[in-house]
């Protein structure tokens, strides 16, 4: 009992009530209080007297403090989970999600594109073939056209020669060396000194490769070469312009070695005609 008395008188209990003890001392006091009713009673007394002392020193807070503090606590009350919370109406706003529809669009689109591509290729190939044909035809037509153009040109020339009143036409008749049917028509324009051979009107035997016909003009009884020409299988319609000559008395054609001769081979004179 002496120990307990000494413990009480040490002043530790007062410090305990005033909160002025270390955590270890605090535990010790609490342990002692639980063991010894006298200590517990002493503590009670100290607490009660301090409480009364505080009540003696009480200061009434202003009236508005009550509302202020209670409101702040009520706000905290409202925060407290212990209070029953108002059941929230269950909003049935949960929508069942339907699985997204299988989107075949791209599949079909791809197939369509492929089909279109194949069709396009076929069309292009076809068109290309047609274009080739058309081009070939065009070239053929062009060449035909050129042929016709040149023919027309030739015809024009021929016509201009035949229509030109200044041209004289001299028919050369066959000699003994030529067949009876042989004949040549020479067109001569004294004003322009032009000699033109209408190959369509050359009725002569065909010459071989080694020989050519040579046209001569007889001027002052001397032969003047006016050029060579061929008589081939093909029907030549050329208006062949020969060398020019002034005042010829006659025209004659001889068969000469290819390329022509300086002087005519009189034995081979085929046709002759006087101007």
């Amino acid at each position, binding site marked *: 009992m002496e120990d307990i008395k000494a413990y009480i*008188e*040490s*002043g*530790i209990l*007062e*410090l305990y*009530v*005033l*909160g*002025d003890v270390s955590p270890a001392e605090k535990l010790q006091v*609490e342990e002692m209080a*639980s063991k010894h009713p006298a200590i517990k009673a002493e*503590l*009670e*007394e*100290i*607490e*009660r*007297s*301090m*409480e*009364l*002392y*505080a*009540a*003696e*020193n*009480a*200061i*009434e*807070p*202003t009236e508005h*403090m*009550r509302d*202020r*503090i*209670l409101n*702040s*606590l*009520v706000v*905290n*009350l409202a925060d*407290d989970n*212990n*209070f029953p919370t108002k059941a929230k109406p269950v909003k049935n706003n949960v929508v069942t999600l339907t699985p997204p529809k299988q989107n075949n669009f791209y599949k079909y689109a791809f197939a369509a594109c492929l089909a279109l591509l194949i069709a396009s290729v076929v069309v292009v190939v076809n068109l290309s073939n047609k274009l080739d044909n058309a081009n070939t035809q065009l070239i053929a037509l062009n060449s035909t056209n050129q042929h016709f153009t040149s023919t027309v040109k030739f015809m024009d020339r021929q016509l201009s020669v035949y229509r030109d009143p200044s041209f004289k036409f001299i028919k050369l008749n066959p000699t003994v060396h030529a067949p009876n049917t042989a004949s040549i028509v020479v067109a001569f324009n004294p004003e322009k000194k032009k000699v033109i051979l209408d190959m369509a009107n050359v009725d002569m035997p065909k010459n071989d490769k080694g020989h050519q016909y040579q046209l001569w003009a007889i001027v002052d009884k001397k032969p003047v070469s006016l050029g060579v020409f061929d008589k081939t299988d093909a029907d030549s319609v050329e208006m062949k312009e020969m060398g020019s000559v002034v005042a010829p008395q006659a025209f004659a054609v001889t068969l000469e070695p290819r390329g022509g001769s300086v002087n005519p081979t009189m034995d081979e004179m085929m046709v002759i005609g006087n101007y």
Partner: protein
Amino acid sequence: MTRRSKISLSEEELVSALKNREKIAVEALYDMYSSSLFGVISRIITDTATAEDVLQETFVKIWHSFSSYSTEKGRLFTWMVNIARHLAIDKLRSKDFKNQNKNQELENNVTFIDEQRNTVYKPELLGIKDLVQTLKPEQKLILELVYFKGYTHVEAADELGIPLGTIKTRLRMAILQLRKHFN
């Protein structure tokens, strides 16, 4: 405006109501203890607005940490007044409060001087006239320092230049005097 009648419960009823988080318990708690707690806080913090803030913080803390209180550890008021004293002392030592005091230095000095000369009328101190006569000056001083100014007994011993043992004895004597007075 008629004065509202205060709610009063026995300590057992109050504690159990607080444990059940009843709203009436909060009102009873305030009505029963706010003035005692505000008295203690006001002795530590002289600025009324700050003291009111601390009182509010005290009740909020009591409410939130009430589960940590148990009747075995002692009376409810002892637990609450220690919360109030700690909050008040923390506030007093906080940087904000110190800065605030610096800014109001002159004004505070005037109030302090007035207090020294007892020229300020303090109605709250009227009731303790008997008590003041009961306590010896050195007992009053030790209670003042430890209970109201937040000194630890070690700090009080330093402040007064008295051995620790003497401080403890004086404190015990002061409280014994109070006990005698209240009985």
